[in-house]
């Protein structure tokens, strides 16, 4: 009997050690995987993999930046002059256009004559820019010049202001609007939720009677159990029209709507965690304060809050964490427009919403896929900074405020 009991004890101990180690290793592996996949983007060319841009050999333009390529194919830039070239209108040529010029049979067996035909088109049009797959590209042919393209740079990614991951030929991966959008929405959410949450927590722990406390706590905990997509739907159908009407906006899907919804979602966490911290204030402190003649209110903000500050900061961090990482609800109410948010009442696009909406169809291993992973890394770094800050705050000696 004793032996078995000892064996079970050992066994449980072993299991706990293993599970601890496995968890740590898994987390590390996830982080490594995230960064490994994400870093790949800086080795990807600006133009879609397997494709190149070609121009007529007489064209003086040597290289075109990623943004200019996009502008050319959107016909925003329509003259070579704007790229320091000749004064001539730009003719945009996509690979599929060749099939409108020639019949399928003219390309010969296995498309052997295709490069030659493409070369002919480029030779005959001085003002052409052609977007062609390398495989059929007219390489080393007279009168054809390949445009030099660089890899996606650090600046393109972090300084770019346009997020158009499926734009062809040059996808735009500017994450600045996404980062700003995420931070704006979460920050405002926490600004709304913190005073509200703290107020409710103070009421619950210090002022409410037992019965009210019981029912309120039950309701608040219920709030934490609602799936985020339900919140999202509630936001879209109820909050969006309200925000639109109250602020007389053209459109109700704004950063503010997202913040409002996130604040509601973060409330249960903030309330329960900070209320627990306040409840745990030593009785001696509280009674000492009252005994010295302090009023109830003075006791609360001079004794209870300072002594539970570490718990409150933990609540704030958990709340921010929830707000920054929240996906579905935000996806449904912020409008997801990837623009720099000029005011709070404009649509924004957040990082989690972008990942959730796009990862499903991004070809595995491609540039878009890597860009989404790098977004994941950014999100990870943001939350890490917040956690570290919280750690520093809560390390402050317990009674420093007294």
């Amino acid at each position, binding site marked *: 009997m004793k032996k078995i009991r000892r064996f079970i004890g050992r066994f449980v101990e072993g299991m706990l050690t293993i599970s601890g180690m496995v968890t740590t290793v898994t987390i590390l592996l996830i982080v490594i995987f995230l960064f490994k996949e994400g870093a790949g983007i800086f080795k990807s060319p600006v133009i879609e993999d397997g494709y190149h841009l070609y121009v007529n050999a007489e064209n003086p333009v040597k290289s075109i930046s990623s943004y200019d390529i996009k502008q050319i194919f*959107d016909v925003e830039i329509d003259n070579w002059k704007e790229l320091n070239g000749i004064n001539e209108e730009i003719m945009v040529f996509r690979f599929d256009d060749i099939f409108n010029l020639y019949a399928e049979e003219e390309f010969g067996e296995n498309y052997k004559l295709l490069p030659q035909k493409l070369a002919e088109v480029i030779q005959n049009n001085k003002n052409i820019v052609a977007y062609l797959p390398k495989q059929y590209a007219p390489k080393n042919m007279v009168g054809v010049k390949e445009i030099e393209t660089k890899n996606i740079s650090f600046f393109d990614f972090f300084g770019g202001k346009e997020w*158009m991951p499926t734009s062809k030929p040059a996808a735009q991966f500017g994450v600045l609007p996404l980062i700003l959008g995420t931070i704006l929405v979460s920050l405002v959410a926490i600004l709304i939720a913190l005073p509200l949450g703290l107020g409710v927590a103070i009421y619950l722990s210090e002022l409410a009677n037992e019965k009210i406390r019981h029912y309120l706590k039950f309701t608040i905990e219920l709030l934490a159990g609602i799936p985020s997509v339900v919140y999202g739907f509630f936001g879209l159908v109820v909050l969006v029209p309200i925000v*639109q009407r109250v602020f007389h906006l053209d*459109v109700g899907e704004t950063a503010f709507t997202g913040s409002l919804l996130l604040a509601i979602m973060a409330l249960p966490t903030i309330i329960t965690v900070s209320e627990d911290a306040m409840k745990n204030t030593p009785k001696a402190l509280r009674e000492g304060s009252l005994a010295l003649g302090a009023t109830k209110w003075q006791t609360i903000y001079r004794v209870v809050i300072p002594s539970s500050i570490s718990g409150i900061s933990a609540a704030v961090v958990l709340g921010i964490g929830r707000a920054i990482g929240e996906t579905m609800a935000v996806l*449904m109410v912020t409008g997801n427009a990837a623009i720099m948010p000029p005011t709070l009442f404009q649509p924004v696009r957040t990082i989690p919403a972008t990942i959730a*909406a796009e990862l499903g169809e991004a070809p595995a291993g491609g540039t878009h896929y890597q860009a989404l992973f790098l977004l994941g890394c950014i999100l990870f770094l943001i939350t890490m900074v917040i956690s570290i800050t919280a750690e520093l705050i809560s390390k402050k000696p317990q009674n420093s405020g007294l």
Partner: protein
Amino acid sequence: MKSNCNNIELILHHQKKNQTKKHKKMKKLLLIATLILSFQIFATAQVLKGSDTMLPLSQKLAEQYMKANKGKTVTVNGGGSGVGIAALVDNTTDIAMASRRIKFAEKQKMQETGRTSKEVIVAYDALAVVVNPANQVTNLTREQLEGIFTGKITNWKQVGGADLKIIVYSRETSSGTYEFFKESVLKNKNYMNGIMSMPATGAIIQSISQTKGAIGYVGLAYLNSSVKAIHVSYDKGKTYVAPSVANAKNKTYPIVRPLFYYYDIKLEKKVKPYIDYVLSSEGQAIVSKVGYIPVK
């Protein structure tokens, strides 16, 4: 890591030993049963993979097909047109569903593996441009639509409506609907920067119904009375056509795309019964019921 694995194996071993013989026997029986079952499924099963637009349609078709032919199994998976065709190239699906025509590069990849794909059009899907019911604008030309969706036209008064800012809604970039609309209406130009993108068609309808200046596009099957469908002209304003099944069928409505099945020619025998069923009058009746336009 390795020692961890060993430990786990040891634990598993212990647990196994503790099991009674009866349990073991049961387990064996169960295993054999599932093996036999799965073999049977593999013998006749067909796998469909691809476009999410076609998912509800194919699911309904497969359901009815399996009801009519006992013992045959058809599994339908989503993932997107690109995913479906990639799976066909890798030979992990029998039929690829695609809401766009196979790309030249994909065709080439298929040929490199020594196989050829065959294309079957199973249905058509029309896209309707919708606005808020309160909007007075009913007719728009393709050029006007291009202007609106690329951000050149920003106020409804520029196209004959009230003085109201245009709010443009679009699907997510990954959607096949997004690509098709871009090809057909925007002539391959990019959407405006900062377009509102919604995760699902239902969300687009909801948003448009509660935003006065909104415009967006949805599949014909999703049209309802909470939004107003725009009559579209592709001939610079000579004729405006309302989106409807009848107009899509007689080819007067311009924003229509075919929905495809692709399969390996060598596997024709295996997939033929199902495809025949889809193209039969019974199958095409299901196509119209789900809200798409039948081929015939």
